[in-house]
């Protein structure tokens, strides 16, 4: 897997909870059924209030987002344990969320599913970046660059979580390390 992720950013504020990432009425969709997986992706972040987020994360009538990297404030992914949240983001094409902090279960679900990289950063990036900015996230170097200004911000290392996501989730990782049979 490439360690540099590029693309346009989608910027959200603090406390984006799992109801905003994937509203509860869509939870009857089962992520392991391929059609329903795609459908979940098309609803990613659709619970964000329209007045504060006029640009939608996934444009109406499409299944894939134009913004592979999400930049957030504190406590991203708080609320329920629904894995539908990182899965909806992954299904629509999100590769990483860079936030000041994550809620625990969301972080864990990103790692377990290998859907996306949950990257922490001490700085308040959601005040610096704007939706649509081109960004470059280098996981090895631990940096996030804003292409238009050339500004570079340090991100925190993923530590133990990195090899699990690189492997594609907890199953692939457990096989690779001999915890379960191949």
């Amino acid at each position, binding site marked *: 897997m490439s360690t540099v992720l590029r693309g346009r950013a989608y910027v959200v504020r603090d406390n984006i909870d799992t109801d905003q990432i994937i*509203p509860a009425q869509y939870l009857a969709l089962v992520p392991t059924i391929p059609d329903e997986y795609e459908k979940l992706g098309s609803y990613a972040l659709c619970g964000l209030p329209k007045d504060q987020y006029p640009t939608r994360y996934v444009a109406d009538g499409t299944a894939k987002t134009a913004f592979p990297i999400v930049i957030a404030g504190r406590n991203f992914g708080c609320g329920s344990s629904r894995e539908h949240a990182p899965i909806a983001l992954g299904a629509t094409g999100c590769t990483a969320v860079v936030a000041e902090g994550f809620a625990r279960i969301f972080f864990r679900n990103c790692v377990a599913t290998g859907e996306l990289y949950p990257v922490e950063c001490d700085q308040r990036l959601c005040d610096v970046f704007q939706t649509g900015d081109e960004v470059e996230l280098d996981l090895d170097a631990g940096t996030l660059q804003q292409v238009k200004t050339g500004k570079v911000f340090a991100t925190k290392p993923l530590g133990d979580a990195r090899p699990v996501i690189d492997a594609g989730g907890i199953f692939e990782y457990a096989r690779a390390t001999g915890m379960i049979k191949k």
Partner: protein
Amino acid sequence: MARAAGKTAVKPGDNVWVNVDVLMTHDVCGPGTIGVFKREFGQDAKVWDKNKIVIIPDHYIFTADSKSNRNVDILRDFVREQGLKYFYDVIDDPNGHWVFDAAKGPMKRQYGDSFAGVCHTALAAKGHTRPGEILLGTDSHTCMAGAFGEFATGIGNTDAGFVLGTGKLLLKVPETMRFRLEGKMQKGVMAKDIILHVIGDIGFDGATYRAMQFDGPGASSLNMDDRMTIANMAIEAGGKNGIFEPDQTTFDYVNERTKFNGTKTAYDPIFCDKDQRFFYDKTFDLTKLEPTVACHPNPGVRKLAKELGNIALDRAYIGSCTGGKSSDFFAFAQIVKGKKVKIDTFGVPATPEVIADLRAANVWQVLVDAGVQMSENPGCAACLGGPADTFGRMNKPMKCISATNRNFPGRMGHLESQVFLASPYTVAASALTGKITDPREYLS
């Protein structure tokens, strides 16, 4: 955790493989968990232990939504195929299909004898919570079982699929935050007020990745229902788990429930280390607490009920794992008895046992006479919104006071609705006046 990992000691930050004692899943996350299990271990794979898996449909049950009804059927097929012992089905026919009868409506009973209601409350009621064990569930409020002195936390479908196949999971040992409770709660104050106060104190991400330990004389004087209310909401401060040290109150409850239900009665309790080190350590004087409310839009926005008299409400709701236990309805009834609610008020008991308790004490009738719309179908209902026809769901922007545990935007339905979390006393008093009301006015 050290014992579950087969080690003599672990320290915060260690990643350890633990052996799981109970895995719980429900209708919303179960089908996905089963999907992960089959994808990874093969179509013919068998679960690691058919006596350690508990499946409790409870979320989207009493709805005409066809996918939701189908999801309960997926659970039933899996239980039959695997020969699982603990499945609290909506219907009694192991080969049947669940179809909600919309014509009967959401208030008339539509379930069979095996149904158990809301998963976390049912786990305790059916004898699946035991001190010293590791309980994982595909639901964030699984931390409620920490009330019984066990390590209990919520996990996602992929992790749960892994546990189904292996009985193990890699967990990071959390640091511990200690909340020492002293003194006695004053009249009109409930366990819900304690936890809302604590979350307001540390912020609703204040315990992220950490364990929240409640101890001291104030904690040991609480009954199991109250401890469950508090442990349930550890996640609302971001906590990994909430935990109470087990004592005679715990043992009595667990022994009674495990014997009555024929579940495993043996357990080996774990007590706190004497030289435990804490990431945070604070004492709370319960005598000083007053009826507390968490305002829209998150559980950390703390105010006192008496400061919010200017907030007019459209409806009131009592129910959920946190607020739908027998003791919650008894408290509610104490306030509304002989009076009439002024706004639409919905009551959803957590389990069938709660309904039986309320009927036996004639409290059901007291609530109905007061104008509360009581549903005979226990479950999550509007606690998390659910499909549009869910009982009590807010389908337009409204303000609701609720005895539930979470109030992020859109939680109970419409994205622009607002939810205020409070104790059953405060919800009841507010239902009578149509404004947020300090219940002490009604308890003189």
